[in-house]
């Protein structure tokens, strides 16, 4: 049977056996309201037109699709880069943030909150909030505040309050938990702009709908040609789902690249699909890094945006149904891929995106002569400190 992508999850918010709404009772009415409001906005031509105006004049869409000539030559694989790094604020995260901020505005919520790992989603939320006149607080783990300091300064300059999260490992998982705790307290006047295709229904579906513009633009820009593969990095899974979804269920092979950190065998990684088991985290059932008792384990990655022990439930569904395959790349491979792209193309990629480049580089001989569409999800300015630190 040919696997099918789902237009949307079922009534219970499930993609097959994944997804759902494992949320505290206080949030359940807000989640139901959000589903209704997004549904009505998404089918409202005026809302769509307004979002499109923002995406073109503010975000700078469509982002270019670029032939990576020197990289292609060096690897013997034809590589097309979807340049999400050129979107305003420097990553794909802004597509979702602008969409959800417009929705918050439409719902009459004066305040938004967000979590952030790499700081890109935090900056995107802070940017959208400033542009729409919304109050904004962003939760960020103390370890990430340290390693993505540039983005903390950007958020503060945009008028956003950055709230440090010291709990747990002080990374993305803890930031999501703390943002949810804020939302349980403030739900009446606050919208939670979740940053990836994670969380309870309707978030994974809504964020996918807001990010699918990436893949749809690629199809237009390809002008009838189809790549052999689409490759993207997978943290929570929004840049990958955004570029995969429009291609899913067709001939094109889809490959998601998770963080192998210090190696899958080291136990220090963020490869939830490759090395996890189904479980519940942050309101959704998905692949999860956990121990035998069901305690959630800490993820590890040099890239703050991939440092997450879960993954969006639709990716879990894509994996189990064979719509996409998932592999991983290590910290060291990602660092080498930063150099590779910088030297061959004059582009410094985000460490997250570098995982996708690393995967293509490692598999170059198997991919010889093929065309690979690669989502360059963000630019690497934020990572210079981390990269320099690893060079010493």
């Amino acid at each position, binding site marked *: 049977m040919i696997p099918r992508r789902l237009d949307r999850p079922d009534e219970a918010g499930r993609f097959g056996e994944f997804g*759902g709404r494992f949320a505290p009772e*206080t949030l359940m009415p807000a989640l139901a309201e959000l589903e209704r409001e997004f549904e009505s906005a998404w089918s409202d031509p005026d809302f769509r037109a307004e979002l499109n105006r923002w995406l073109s004049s503010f975000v700078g869409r469509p982002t270019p699709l670029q032939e990576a000539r020197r990289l292609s030559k060096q690897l013997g694989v034809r590589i097309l880069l979807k340049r999400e790094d050129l979107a305003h604020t420097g990553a794909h995260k802004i597509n979702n943030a602008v969409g959800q901020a417009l929705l918050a505005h439409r719902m009459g919520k004066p305040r938004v909150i967000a979590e952030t790992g790499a700081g890109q989603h935090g900056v995107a939320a802070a940017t959208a909030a400033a542009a729409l006149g919304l109050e904004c607080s962003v939760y960020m783990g103390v370890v990430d505040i340290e390693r993505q300091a540039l983005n903390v300064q950007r958020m503060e300059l945009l008028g956003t309050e950055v709230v440090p999260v010291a709990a747990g490992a002080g990374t993305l998982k803890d930031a999501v*938990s703390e943002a949810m*705790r804020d939302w*349980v307290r403030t739900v009446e006047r606050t919208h939670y702009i979740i940053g990836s295709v994670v969380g309870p229904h309707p978030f994974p579906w809504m964020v996918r709908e807001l990010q699918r513009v990436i893949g749809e633009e690629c199809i237009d820009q390809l002008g009838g040609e189809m790549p052999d593969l689409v490759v993207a990095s997978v943290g929570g899974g929004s840049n990958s789902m955004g570029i995969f979804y429009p291609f899913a269920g067709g001939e094109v092979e889809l490959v998601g690249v998770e963080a192998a950190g210090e190696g899958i065998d080291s136990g220090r990684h963020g490869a939830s699909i490759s090395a996890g088991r189904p479980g519940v985290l942050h309101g959704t059932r998905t692949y*999860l890094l956990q121990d035998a008792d069901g305690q*959630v384990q800490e993820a590890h990655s040099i890239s703050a945006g991939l440092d997450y022990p879960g993954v969006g439930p639709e990716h879990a569904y894509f994996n189990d149904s064979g719509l996409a395959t998932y592999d991983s790349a290590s910290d060291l491979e990602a660092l080498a891929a930063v150099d590779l792209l910088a030297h061959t193309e004059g582009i410094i990629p985000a460490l997250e995106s570098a995982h996708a480049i690393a995967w293509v580089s490692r598999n170059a001989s198997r991919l010889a002569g093929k065309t690979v569409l690669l989502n360059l999800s963000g630019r690497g300015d934020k990572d210079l400190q981390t990269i320099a630190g690893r060079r010493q």
Partner: protein
Amino acid sequence: MTPIREMFATLERAALLPYLTAGLPTPADSIDLFRAMVDAGADAFEVGIPYSDPLMDGPVIMRASEVALAAGTDATRAWAVLEQVAGLGKPTLAMTYANPVMQAGWEAYCRRLSGVGAAGIIIPDLPLEEAGPLLEAGIAAGVGVVLFVSPTTDPDRLRRVAQADPEFIYGVSDLGVTGERQAVSEHVVGLSARVRAVTEVPLVLGVGISTPEQVQAVRQLADGVIVGTALVRRVLEATNAQEAARALFDAVRDLRTALE
């Protein structure tokens, strides 16, 4: 009648259900703290199973979870504490999160609860829509499943929660996660009235109820009151198990007096 329902039926006042994380200050000492609370007049217990990601808990109970895990309270030791607490003769409920139960299997987990003498289970990230398998497993194993309502729950939804016939309804008295509050929430009177209007399922209020004055203010509104953070904080502040037990005894006695 189940032990929990029987407790509500026989008591002529609201019941006092202290919450305490299992394994504090260590797995071995934990039972002494619960025993002190029995001596001080606790009617039933909510035993927190230490978890890595307690989404409905504020800083104090989060910290308690971390301390208990660091003290070696893994699942095996948590089950042992739960069995000891249930052995004190008061209805005992496990408070945990969806993932650990799902990993064990809904049925297996409920059978094990019943095996250690626990009377019920409370899972704050398992709303009505996701609770079906647990409700079934609870019935099969003779373990009471608690469901939540909140100030944000509308009457229609409230009716559906009541129709699922939970062991009791956990009324979240305030928006937000567990933690102490300056005063009883403005939401609590309306919440209680809305529950009472649609069902006879017992109502227990919790979240943000900490002091004897606050307990006194809500005692007419419910069949029981859960006090957690205020007690856990005393345990975290104590320098050893004896001091913690004494502090808990005093606190629980004062809370009980406020219910008379």
